[in-house]
């Protein structure tokens, strides 16, 4: 059994480490510092932490101003409020002028659990990837989150960093650097490609095991970057296996599955199945139960893979 850690927990430590390294890093939060885990940074660097209160749109605009004056702001709240409540502030005040703001959101997806649909962001990848200049990163686990925070800080320009509430297994290397815009081939196979992002990558690896037991060799390509999308890696695996399944903790509309479909349909039409939230709102419940009810399981990935074979 691998180690379990929530990506937001990894964010906590990464942010403090980054604060030590770079004096220009400032952090903003909207009354959720103990949930988004920016609290530790606020204690380590009180001068560089701004408590904005329950005012996400204002927080986003303030972050833009800080960036316009040379700072590297990380603005944190739940994904639904970060991207939904302040969408147009992100678009017009941050992305249009290409300002160096990092929207570091936690509690993405339905694994938010008991708070229910109002708090379960399953459209945020779509909202963010549609904005010019914006980069979108969905790390799979703790170590990759740390690397993503560092990469986001080094990158000039707006970044959306998508993190979760629930603990997820560690499946990538403890010490790593993220290559900007690059996918990671986690498992080789020739029968079908599973393209995944975020917490679904661990489940895709399980799906590949199940398929292997049945004699089907799946390739697992993890895409921490939804944007810029590693088109080369997507095309290479599609050319190899000629069958693609995508999996994400997000709506099947506008997320990773859509991004992959866009590339493939233009450059290498390939049979495709999408695993994700099927254009519906979530509900309250335990994260594990919700994943089953909404079809975000290794079994669902296996089912979709078999549909193609």
């Amino acid at each position: 059994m691998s180690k379990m850690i929530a990506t937001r927990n990894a964010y906590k430590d990464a942010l403090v480490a980054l604060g030590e390294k770079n004096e220009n890093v400032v952090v903003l939060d909207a009354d959720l510092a103990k949930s988004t885990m920016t609290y530790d940074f606020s204690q380590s660097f009180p001068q560089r932490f701004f408590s904005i209160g329950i005012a996400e749109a204002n927080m986003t605009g303030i972050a833009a101003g800080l960036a316009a004056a040379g700072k590297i702001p990380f603005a944190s709240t739940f994904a639904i409020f970060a991207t939904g409540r302040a969408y147009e502030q992100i678009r017009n005040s941050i992305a249009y002028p290409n300002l160096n703001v990092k929207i570091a959101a936690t509690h993405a997806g339905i694994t938010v659990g008991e708070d229910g649909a109002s708090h379960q962001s399953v459209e945020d990848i779509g909202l963010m990837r549609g904005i010019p200049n914006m980069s979108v990163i969905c790390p799979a686990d703790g170590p990759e989150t740390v690397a993503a925070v560092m990469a986001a800080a080094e990158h000039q320009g707006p970044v959306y960093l998508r993190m979760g509430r629930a603990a997820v297994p560690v499946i990538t290397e403890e010490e790593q650097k993220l290559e900007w815009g690059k996918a990671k081939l986690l498992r080789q196979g020739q029968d079908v490609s599973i393209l995944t992002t975020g917490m679904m990558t661990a489940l895709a690896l399980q799906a590949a095991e199940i398929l292997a037991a049945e004699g089907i060799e799946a390739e697992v390509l993890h895409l921490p970057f939804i944007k810029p999308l590693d088109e080369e890696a997507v095309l290479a695996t599609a050319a190899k296996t000629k069958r693609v399944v995508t999996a994400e903790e997000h709506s099947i509309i506008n997320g990773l599955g859509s991004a992959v479909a866009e590339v493939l349909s233009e450059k290498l039409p390939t049979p495709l199945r999408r695993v994700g939230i099927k254009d519906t709102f979530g509900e309250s419940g335990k994260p594990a139960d919700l994943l089953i009810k909404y079809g975000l399981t290794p079994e669902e990935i296996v089912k979709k893979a078999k549909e193609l074979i």
Partner: protein
Amino acid sequence: MSSKNIAKEIRREIVKMTAAAKSGHPGGSLSLAEIMEVLYFEEMKIDPAQPDWPERDRFVLSKGHATPVLYSTLALRGFFPKEELKNFRQIDSILQGHPDMKGIPGVDFSTGSLGQGLSGAVGMALAARLDKNNSRVYAVIGDGECQEGQIWEAAMAAAHYKLANLTVILDYNNLQICGKVDEVMDIGPIAEKWQAFGWRVIETDGHDLDTIRQAIKMAQAEESCPTIIIAHTIKGKGVSFMENDPDWHGRAPNQEQLALALAELEKGE
């Protein structure tokens, strides 16, 4: 149920349902028990047998996380069976973590994202006026919630349209998740702000049934502008270890704490 016992009964259900769910928001629910008693058991024109009655008074819990107090009140008032409270926040339950108007009898507006409910209440008050319907709209907002710009946009609109049929109750407990409201992001001077926005402002003790009742009657009698009742409350009221402690904002009691809380509520007046 004698009047004294309704708020107490509501509080019992709040701690029981959050304990059963192992999640939810007891603090900002306990602060509202007396206010909900006066609204739902005395002042609001409602009929539990017809939750969709067009001429009913409407209620918007703009601070939507306080579902434990809303659902307990609705159950005790007969909108759905009390047994349902056990399913709060469980998969396949109607009782969603935040108010869901399409699934729960008696819930008039879906909320959960702070700052949005009050605008909905303004819309309902405008509709009542259009329909020449003399029903009223009540909305409960949080003090932390007043940091949202949309609250002030709604406040401006309600005064602009002279919505005397709209009454807002501010749960002024001076706490939000990260601590004291005036330390996280000061909202003061709050009474003066609402006044300056064109509202009638009434301040009251939010745990005293008589003064709450009087305040609501004054709001009902006001003909020229919307009214806000600034209710001075204690977050976690009635359960000593939850009172004035921001850690009980969004944390459920375990079985031991539940027993303690119920024993205290039994003793208390």
